[in-house]
């Protein structure tokens, strides 16, 4: 189910294209250098509205750096051709983050590997934070939320199965519960894009599956565009129809996860010992 025209109307005022022509995320010639290190090299990629994309690659290949650029948390190199757009609206261009970036961020739910939540605040308050960008400043300053906002936050928590923990401090929850709460926050944000940076890296397999299932459900039922970086290739193949692989800052594979062969994976990961290819082979062949 694609996003309706009304929902992204405010963003559309920046563009004269129609919605069908608008990709959710458009990255044009993105370069990023940290000191001597070329972290991203001429990345060109489109994420269409409603897609669920798995971002894979070895540690240090640039997955986090790419995701953080999309939400304007870091700026690209100052090359005039570098540009990132979300729903057609410029997030950053030529290394300059657009001054309206907060409006765009409000549409993007960002989930980190861990430590997404403020541990000393209740789960409910952590979820309500998702609405900050859309409420007047005086209310947010004094932590004043309306009943309906609180009700929506409860519904978001219920959606990820955590309604009964609403008043608990975030720090007292398990890692998997915290990640699902972070997903609830993106729901409260009414985000139409979710960027998740290794959301399951610190979780046990059962919690990891639950988190991935929640993301998959939001993608399929709500039409939310999901871009998720993953270390566990088997999860990427199982949950993401499209895979984008990075190697040393370059995109070396972009296509259907069904087209990804064990040989390609071996090359992407330099036959890295951290990946158990033989364990994946049966999963690949099973398809």
């Amino acid at each position, binding site marked *: 189910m694609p996003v309706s025209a009304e929902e992204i109307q405010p963003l559309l005022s920046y563009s004269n294209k129609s919605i069908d022509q608008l990709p959710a995320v458009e990255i044009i010639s993105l370069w990023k250098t940290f000191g001597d290190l070329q972290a991203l090299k001429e990345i060109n990629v489109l994420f269409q509205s409603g897609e669920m994309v798995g971002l894979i690659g070895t540690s240090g290949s640039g997955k986090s750096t790419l995701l953080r650029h999309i939400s304007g948390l870091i700026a690209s190199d100052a090359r005039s051709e570098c540009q990132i757009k979300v729903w057609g609206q410029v997030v950053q261009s030529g290394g300059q983050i657009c001054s309206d970036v*907060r409006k765009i961020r409000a549409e993007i739910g960002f989930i*980190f590997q861990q430590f997404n939540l403020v541990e*000393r605040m209740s789960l409910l308050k952590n979820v309500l*934070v998702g609405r900050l960008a859309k409420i007047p400043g005086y209310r947010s*300053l004094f*932590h004043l939320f309306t009943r309906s906002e609180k009700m929506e936050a409860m519904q978001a928590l219920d959606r990820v199965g955590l309604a009964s923990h609403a008043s608990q401090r975030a720090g007292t929850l398990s890692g998997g519960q915290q990640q699902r709460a972070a997903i609830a*926050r993106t729901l409260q944000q009414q985000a139409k894009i979710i960027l998740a940076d290794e959301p399951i890296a610190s979780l046990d397999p059962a919690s990891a599956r639950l988190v991935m299932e929640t993301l998959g459900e939001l993608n399929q039922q709500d039409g939310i565009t999901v871009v998720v970086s993953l270390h566990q290739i088997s999860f990427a193949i199982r949950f993401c129809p499209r895979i984008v692989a990075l190697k040393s800052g370059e995109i070396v594979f972009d296509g259907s996860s069904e087209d990804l062969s064990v040989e390609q994976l071996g090359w992407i990961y330099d036959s890295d010992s951290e990946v158990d290819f033989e364990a994946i082979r049966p999963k690949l062949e099973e398809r």
Partner: protein
Amino acid sequence: MLTSAENNSSARLEVPKTPLGTILSCFVATVLLVAILLFSIEGAEIRFGDLWKNRGNMLEYGSGFLKPDFLDWPDYLQEMIITLQIAVWGTFLAIMGAIPFGLICSSNISPSWMTQPVRRLMDLLRSVNEMVFAMLFIAAVGLGPFAGVLALSLHTLGTLSKLFSEAVEAIDPQPVEGIRATGAMPIEEITYGIIPQVIPLWISYSLYRFEANVRSASVIGMVGAGGIGMLLWDAIRSFNYAKTAAIVLVIVVVVSVLDFASSRIRRLYI
């Protein structure tokens, strides 16, 4: 067998010698310390003998504590309450100032062109003793408790700003970035991401400063800035040992009770 093995190993092992440099620097440090102490004897008029010579005066003072004169206790009580009121307001004003100034002093959230000058200003406030501020404010607003409030709050502002900013600099930055990623404004990053993380430390530091301010408030009265210190100074100047003793006892009891209560409360937050 065992002994031969031990012999072998003790032949191979060697206790490391203390390097000559370490020995020399210890020696130099000791000589310097002794020299400084000797140099300061004259200026500080270190004459332990006087303690013995004047033992009569001291005994007289001490005897005051055997029969403290609580005749004017309603006055003492009233002035002690004023002392606490001075401490409450001095601390409150300091906290109100230390919240913004502490945030401005934190290098992880403010640019250095802001942190550096404000930090120097806070260092300055901290380096001036409350008594000195009290005398300055008496000149400005006249004798009385308000001068004491201002004096305490300025000195405490310097201390709390530093403590508050150290707490802010020690926070976990990731939840704050999580809030930023939702499109929140910088002020919201502070109120939702930073304040909840630092609030237990801030409360604890504020209580700690309140304890210190009760102690300071009971002496700044000596220069005329209100509170029980004024009575104390009067009693001392008129050589009224019994009254002096009574006032000191009131101060000691109230300060100890408050210290105890506040340190109990502080423990709840750490």
